[in-house]
């Protein structure tokens, strides 16, 4: 089930990506409306990360394209923020929490200019939002996984973007961090911003996301969570992994998903 929208904020058209002749994404085609929190789910190796990397021009698609706000990424780069997976960087890097967050203001500064008062305020504000005020000068290697993830989120906030792509922001974080992050993301969408998140925890999909995109190399479904996050489609997406599936199906039934208004 693929539900398209008019005037999409994100439009993925016939996207195919291959790594060394092995297809990772096949013919992905969907659209996302603005102001939503969208989750991309699918089994390991389904191409979730590749999908948002393709949206950020970090991988070159074999065919197809991604348009953001109806334009190519190059034209709207300052309105788009990308949060890579936490483990893609070296956390022993000599930087403090504040240093990393301030980095989010660099792109808007351009060459030769350095952060001034306005940028520093922005960074401090982001620091408050992710509840890391007490860790401002902490060396990043001394943070827990959840705190590292919040640093990445804060860096994205200082970019003042309208569209966010986040790769596994909830992976390996503590419950408190998960709460903080979801609060920040919901605040963003309440201000009309669009957030697209790669997600792996099926139990929280219905609770968190307005929109769900299910992929397994091919697109299985894309639409409002209340419509597409069904046991049948989840089974189709995760096909074969039965233990997990029965568990999920069980959960879906016993928990009685609350209806979502969209």
């Amino acid at each position, binding site marked *: 089930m693929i539900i398209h929208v008019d005037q999409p904020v994100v439009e993925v058209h016939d996207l195919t990506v291959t790594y060394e002749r092995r297809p990772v994404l096949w013919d992905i085609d969907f659209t996302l409306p603005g102001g939503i929190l969208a989750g991309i789910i699918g089994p390991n190796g389904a191409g979730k990360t590749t999908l948002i990397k393709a949206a950020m021009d*970090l991988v070159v698609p074999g065919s197809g394209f991604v348009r953001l706000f109806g334009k190519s990424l190059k034209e709207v780069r300052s309105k788009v923020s990308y949060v890579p997976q936490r483990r893609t960087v070296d956390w022993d890097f000599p930087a*403090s929490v504040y240093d990393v967050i301030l*980095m989010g203001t660099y792109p808007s500064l351009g060459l030769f200019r350095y952060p001034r008062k306005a940028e520093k305020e922005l960074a401090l504000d982001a620091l408050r939002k992710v509840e890391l005020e007490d860790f401002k000068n902490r060396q990043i290697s001394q943070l827990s996984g959840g705190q590292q993830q919040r640093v990445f989120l804060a860096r994205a906030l200082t970019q003042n973007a309208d569209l966010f792509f986040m790769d596994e922001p909830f992976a390996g974080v503590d419950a408190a961090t998960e709460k903080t992050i979801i609060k920040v993301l919901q605040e963003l969408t309440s201000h009309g911003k669009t957030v697209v998140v790669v997600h792996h925890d099926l139990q929280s999909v219905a609770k968190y996301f307005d929109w769900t995109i299910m992929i397994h190399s091919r697109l299985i479904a894309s639409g409002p969570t209340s419509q597409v996050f069904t046991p049948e489609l989840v089974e189709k997406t995760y096909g074969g992994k039965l233990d997990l599936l029965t568990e999920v199906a069980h959960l879906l039934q016993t928990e009685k998903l609350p209806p979502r208004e969209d």
Partner: protein
Amino acid sequence: MDAFFVILTGSLVAVTCGILGIFLMLRRMVMIGDAISHSVLPGIVIAFLISGSRDGLAMLIAAVITGLLTTFIIQFIHEKGKLQADASIGVTFTWLFAIGIILISVFADYVDLDQECVLYGEIAYVPIDLWILPSGIIMGPRSVYMLGTVLLIVVITILFFFKEFYMVTFDQDFAVSTGLSVTLWHYILMALISLTTVASFESVGAILVVAFLVAPPASAYLLSDDFKTIIILTVFIGIIVAISGYFLAVYINSSISGSMTVMAGIIFAIAWLLAFRRRNFQKSLKIIKF
């Protein structure tokens, strides 16, 4: 006065190499620095054959070209040839370095380059290798000018583009997502390394340059968690290495660049011990921050 110039030259080499070494180390590309320090040799010899002198510009341009070519070949073999990065580095630089050695021996009659000097450098000759203007005015040791210029280029580039180097070094994907070209900054860094190597090789030689690229930054990295402090410490350690190395060489009457490298190793060992103590016994102890 001679001692002063030798120490000054050593310090210039150590500081220039050290500053760039920090970025190499944090990007886990130290061995590319090693590769470039060797593979610029054929470029230097060819530049010498064409221009007929060891002076300035031709040499620096040749170094940058060969350095970038090396980086490109390593990248190409690694990506297109599907060979591991370290293997492609090993294949590329030894091959280019060997070509340089052959060129020197084949054109020995025309090239005023000595294999010993290329390999080990001879910093003791710095004070007698003077830059003399056509009018006969003695300007001082040639190496000091060459190294001074390169240090200036390096410092200015890093200062102007610190933000960009910092982003590209810490988080490549994020940097690319904001529109920076990681490739461009990579090649700029490699060009700077090439310049530094060629300016340094007469004094410390191709083999020891890598010690100056790695040892001071590695020591500083162990002593601090703050980027700016690491830069300042690297500069400071580089100068200490040059001074103490010189006096060690005088005392035991031995190779100056060798002694400087030995001192760099000793300082690294001390830094490692301090860091080890801090990590294991005194967790609350403050690390250095300026």
